[in-house]
């Protein structure tokens, strides 16, 4: 069968139609509301394990939202499997990317605090009062 643009346009029809659109809309709204709920919950909390746990949950919710937007709104879920793979597989580089760089940043901080005493002292000084609307550049 020859593929013309019209036949390709017709093949894009797969998927749940308007019903699916509204379902995904509701899911995205609920996920956002839950995220905001966690955001408000974190406000009164001190830094610690509990706060880090909530931040982890928020990141998982963020990835779920990304899945619904890419999968349903951008229709990737209904594309040919090989196409999905060529788009999604390279993105797994991010796993290494994130782990490597965040660890690097963290070890930079630890080393600097350990070996550069002046840096550590300075980062304990309180911030001087700031004048409203002034720019240090000007």
């Amino acid at each position, binding site marked *: 069968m020859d593929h013309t643009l019209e036949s390709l346009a017709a093949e894009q029809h797969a998927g749940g139609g308007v019903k699916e659109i509204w379902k995904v809309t509701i899911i995205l709204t609920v996920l956002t509301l839950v995220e905001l709920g966690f955001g408000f919950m974190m*406000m009164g909390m001190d830094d610690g394990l509990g706060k880090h746990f909530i931040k982890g949950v928020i990141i998982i919710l963020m990835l779920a939202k990304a899945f619904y937007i890419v999968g349903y709104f951008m229709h990737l879920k209904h594309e040919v499997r090989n196409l999905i793979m060529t788009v999604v597989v390279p993105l797994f580089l991010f796993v290494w990317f994130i782990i490597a760089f965040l660890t690097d940043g963290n070890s930079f901080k630890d080393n600097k605090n350990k070996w550069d005493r002046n840096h550590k002292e300075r980062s304990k000084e309180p911030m001087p009062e700031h004048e409203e609307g002034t720019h240090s550049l000007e």
Partner: protein
Amino acid sequence: MDTTATTTTGLWKGGRSPFKVEYGKLMMWYFLMSDAFTFGAFLIAYGTTRFATNGWPNPNEVFRSYPLAGESAHAPLVFVSIMTFILIVSSVTMVLAVHEGHNMNRKGVAKYMVLTILGGLAFLSCQAWEWTHLYHEGAWWGSNPFPNADGTISTTNFTNFFFTITGFHGFHVFSGVVINIIMLIMVLKGVFDRRGHYLMIEKAGLYWHFVDLVWVFVFTCFYLI
């Protein structure tokens, strides 16, 4: 051309699109993937810097105002959640425009494209207000009036990354609005009806959803955590 030959010898023997997708749309996907790496690099640079810094400003103290609120406003997350919902809704209207395009319904496509453009403009207006507000508080590239959460001296990295990344995203929203306006004009002139398909709306839609997708990450990284 012998049609039976191509159907029996597999997807990659020619005569058909192995991915069952038009060339332009496939390239849009790869462009968006590369753009995801650009935004990813920005956000990871932000994360790395944050991990490498003692202390960081509390976003709830920085982003706590909304239009007409006055100086003492303390409403963290409120304004940015409105911005988030504006973008989600405009994404939904974009899907509906694509859906109407499948049905070759010119009026439906035009209606939802107008709504999508309005959503984009509303988001840009919100961002313009937020930037102006922060600027008047003394925040800009190279200038950070907000102390760390524990009151200690902060670095300008906080504002540098905020303005760079939300600015880069805002520029994407702006180009998306321009693209959508061009698409709307083409729809109204009946260009796609003459072509016999609305694939162009799908490509613009992919770009628009990507803008929404990036905001999901920016919103989480800057305002929530």
